[in-house]
């Protein structure tokens, strides 16, 4: 059971090990719409929440291939097809000379794919998010660790989830308004 306007329940911890242990138990209890919040990357949380592998490396690979094709294609098209010029008797298709710019565009496109892909996968920029309604949530960027179970989770029940979260010994459990 839930109530309208409720985004979820947020448990607050002061130790990284505590939030990892809690995340593991919440996951074992069958909750899937769970997220943890920490002031620095805690690798064990990824494992505790059983997060899938990031798709980002694929994006970056595709970005790099696109960059290579775009860079080399541009050089080939400009130097061989559109504007062939005899420069010092070098062939129009001077592939060794085309390597440095094509290399740079490969890196450029891959790096752009990494940053834009990371932002896209994370749904950022996101001007509003319900978790910021928790008054102490500002400490998530300082020294506090949070675990949020969302109300849309099929296992979610306001009272039972609340007491389950309390059993994990957080500092406090609070309701997160939409």
């Amino acid at each position, binding site marked *: 059971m839930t109530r309208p306007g409720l985004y979820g329940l947020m448990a607050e911890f002061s130790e990284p090990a505590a939030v990892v242990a809690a995340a593991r138990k919440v996951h074992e209890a069958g909750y899937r719409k769970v997220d943890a919040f920490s*002031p620095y990357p805690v690798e064990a949380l990824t494992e505790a929440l059983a997060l899938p592998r990031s798709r980002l490396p694929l994006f970056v690979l595709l970005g790099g291939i696109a960059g290579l094709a775009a860079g080399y294609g541009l050089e080939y098209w400009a*130097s061989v097809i559109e504007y062939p010029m005899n420069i010092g008797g070098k062939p129009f298709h001077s592939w060794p000379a085309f390597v440095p710019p094509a290399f740079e565009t490969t890196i450029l496109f891959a790096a752009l794919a*990494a940053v834009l892909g*990371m932002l896209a*996968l994370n749904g*950022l920029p996101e001007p509003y998010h319900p978790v910021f309604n928790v008054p102490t949530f500002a400490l998530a960027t*300082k020294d506090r660790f949070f675990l949020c179970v969302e109300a849309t989770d099929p296992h979610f029940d306001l009272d039972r989830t609340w007491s389950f979260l309390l059993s994990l010994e957080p500092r406090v459990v609070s309701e997160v308004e939409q």
Partner: protein
Amino acid sequence: MADAADPGLARDATPAPPRREELVGPGHDFASVTEKISSIVLQRRTPWGWFVGFAIAFALLQGMLLAVGYLLFVGIGVWGVTIPIGWGMDIINFVWWIGIGHAGTLISAILLLLRQGWRTSINRFAEAMTLFAVACAAFYPVFHTGRPWLAYWLFPYPNTMGLWPNFRSPLIWDVFAVSTYGTVSLLFWFVGLVPDLATLRDRARSKPWKILYGILAMGWRGSARHWHNYDTAYLLLAGLATPLVVSVHTVVSFDFAIGIIPGWHATIFPPYFVAGAIYAGFAMVLTIAIPLRKFYALEDFITMRHLENMAKVMLATGLIVAYGYMMEAFMAWYSADTYERFAIWNRMTGPYWKMYWALILCNVVAPNTLWVKNLRTSVPYLFFMSLVVSVGMWLERFVIIVTSLHRDFLPSSWGIYRGTFFDWSAFIGTLGLFSTLLFLFVRFLPAISIFEMRTILPGAEVEEEHP
């Protein structure tokens, strides 16, 4: 709960492994690290020294604007460049600045991949240094074109003239290398800043700053899902920036090595330029780090170990550079080529002999004092050495560019180069631009990466459970 008031202080002092203690002063926890770094931006009164330093830097920047204004009005004839020395201080300074930038990327990317924990407190401002150095560097070739308002002709784009750049020219490679380097450095720096901008957003007291940092933080909330992608992105960026940084100074060295001028046409140029870039860059990082830690009392975060490690990198790369000089001279002799032999002999004994031997003193003799531990761990000495190295690397570029060009094949076309007032004012002006940007950066953004500092604190790591 016992630690309700301040969980940070209540954290029991578990003894940390000694390696980590040296990277962060004792007694720090998540809260105190956050507090100390963010308070420089948010709460602490701006020290009077900041205003004095900023005023000087800003005055130099105004001087640069005057020098550039006159340059645009009259043309690059106001510079000392002439035939046969078509590349003068503008290109010397371009190479000098772009080289300095390399240490920032080395610290943020290569040392990250090598899991060097000591990079953590120095990477942020070293990356900022990279960005500002690239900005200063880019100024020179753009103005060297003579018609900087047409500098966009360097980029390939469809135009009514039906022209395309010549991709066989290393100068076009330079356009691609430097613009990619600038862009990727900016991305890397900004991605690293996002979690810290969120910290500033959450800790800022006044509404306008909260909104400003909030916009820049893009709604970062430290979600585990976000960190997961974030870490992957950060690592991949490091992996991409590593070959990039090596390629940039390689391409810069191709500007010379592809030419047939005696003294330039050498295969040793790429590795020796890259080593020189890192050498110069670490010197600049030390030049910035030493006053920064002193004036903002950051000795807990930028410890003696950081300074000593940087001195060691400087020593190692300095030795590679010295090897480069030796090989240059050896290959000139061994090639049995009259012009190559003459170019080196002319460097050592010609009109610019003082520059050459000053360069040997600064880049070959002086860094060897860093073998001595007492000197390597003396802060004033390191600061002095960092300036010596910066001067030495400037001289290196002077020697390579000017002495090779001023006497090439035909004695009838020999000449002498002298930097004019406008050469020097443009150079000092970019020093002003660089320091102005640095002062603003230290004042408005966290100069040390807060979230990465948290990760190296004792108690930050949580053991993964493997069933």
